[in-house]
């Protein structure tokens, strides 16, 4: 009985946490998007003093890059240097 009540509370908590978890994930993604923009800023004309170092992250970012430019409302990759699609 106690076990079932615990399960019920856990279920209920999960239900009400759903939008909350989504909001946090969205906020984190938003921060990530800005970070990505800063890393590639040189390519869109904003000077970046650590460009060579950020470029090293390129292979790690490539997979995420496609989703990022789609989220930013761009159907195709905006940067000629990165041909993701």
């Amino acid at each position: 009985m106690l076990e079932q009540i615990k399960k019920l509370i856990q279920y209920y908590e999960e239900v009400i946490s759903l939008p909350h978890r989504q909001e946090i994930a969205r906020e984190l993604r938003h921060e990530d998007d800005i970070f990505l923009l800063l890393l590639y800023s040189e390519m869109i004309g904003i000077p970046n003093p650590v460009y060579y170092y950020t470029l090293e992250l390129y292979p790690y970012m490539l997979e995420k890059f496609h989703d990022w430019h789609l989220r930013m409302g761009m159907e195709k990759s905006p940067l000629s240097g990165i041909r993701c699609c």
Partner: protein
Amino acid sequence: MSGILVAVIGIVVFALGYRYYSKFVAEKIFRLDPNYVTPAHQYKDGVDFVPTNKFVLWGHHFTSVAGAAPILGPAIAVYWGWLPAFLWVILGTVFAAGVHDFGTLVLSIRNKGQSVGTLAHRLIGQRAKILFLFIILILVLMVNAVFAWVISNLFISYPASVVPVFIQIPLAIWIGYAVYKRNIKMLLPSVIALAVMYLVAVLSSNIGWMQIDLVQWMGGEGSTGIFGLGAVSSAFFIWIIILMVYVYIASTLPVWKLLQPRDFINSHQLVVGLGILYVGLIFTNPEMTAPVTNANADTSWLPLLFITIACGAISGFHGLVSSGTSSKQLDKETDARFVGYAGAVGEGILALVSIIAVATFFTSTADFSAVYHSFASANASGLGVFVEGAAVLAGGLGIPTDVAVTIVSIIVVSFAATTLDTSVRLMRYIIAELGTEYKLPALTKTHVATSIAVLSSAALVLLPEGPKGFGSGGYQLWPLFGTANQLLAAISLMLIAVWLKRLGRNYAVVIIPMIFVMVMTLYAMFQQVLFEWSWNGTEPNTLLFVLGSIIFVFAIWIIITAFSVLRGSADQNLDN
């Protein structure tokens, strides 16, 4: 007839609808495939697209769609007797709402999790997008005006509910802070907030000075208040202005600061409310004292019944939730039946208990006739009767009536306030989108769009004159809210029909409810616009005449579009 028996019959029909009809639709019409890769898996991003357990998703879907509307509509519709309202709620839920909510969910899953708005754009083109935006704009405008009136009305009728409702605001801000900034699990703070609210409700029900009774403060009903208005008019005016200022601030804040924490508290209130009412029903075992059908009705039930109860029988708003958020989180396609159809059944259960609470409240038929003597009176007093009736049911659990009345009105006000907040926010987005569409950049500014949303809503709720004077006529907007909601449902059903046609399946299950709600909307608007609100009508009213005419034209537009789309080849634009 016993209230318990009515509840049992309703629940059994819902269960049979889920067990057999939804199974038939799922297997024979939609032909759900357990191996289909849903958008939640295909586009999994950890934010919008997240595979979620079907029970958790159902809980979230249900709490998102259930609110004040499925309580208010049935409470008014009992005017024609409890049987017509009961039949429309159960049959509407089984054959219309269930299929609509379930269908929009499946349609969206089969099309990359896109919303009905986007799908309308893809299928019918640019004009459908604009049509869709305008219908949602009218719908949210109605929601704002109706719920602002509902809240003001409850504040005036039940002054003990004011303080607990306003205490919810700082409590919600505290929860937002605790959960998002301090990373505390939300269950405990939100339960504490609820307990504080109900404790304050107990105190305010018993302590006179905690009741914010504006009408009494201005010297009672017959006195003069501000600007030479009567005391009741002044109270409506003050509450509506306060509410509009509140929603302006609330809808421009980030969602996590106020709106979401309020939703956590409201989820608890929904569970508490449903629990109290159904358990109370078992303990009190009341008789249905309202007449089965009302022979003395001054307005015919046909077609008004079908637009008076929108949420609880079929509501287009659910399609926005189904295709907007739930479809992106569905783990397996076969889960759609449970989440969509049972979500609609959940709302039907809420509407059902609203009918029972109202229909068991009266001591005699004469007592019923005294309150429900005209359709206008039903519109104005329906919700009040629900609050009192629900308090009687809560009395079965030993809760004193005055405290129960305060708690029930707090629950209704909380639902209505959250809906108000969400819909002002939604209206702001739509105004901004129309601004982009028609190249009016000023409209895309947050404060410009919010000001337009708030001012137009305030004008709409304040302008209609009611029996208690200025500002008290907001209830007249309820049939318009119902029709706007049905229009949205009809568009969604049309889109599902197009999809089914493409697959070569029988689309009668969606086209019949669509034609039904459209005919009722057209019939109702034709009758109201021409015979009531026009300059030759019984109650001339330019504002309602204009809005009703717009809805009428939109309804005809949707029907013509539906036929041309179903005959044409627009279905080629769908993915699956």
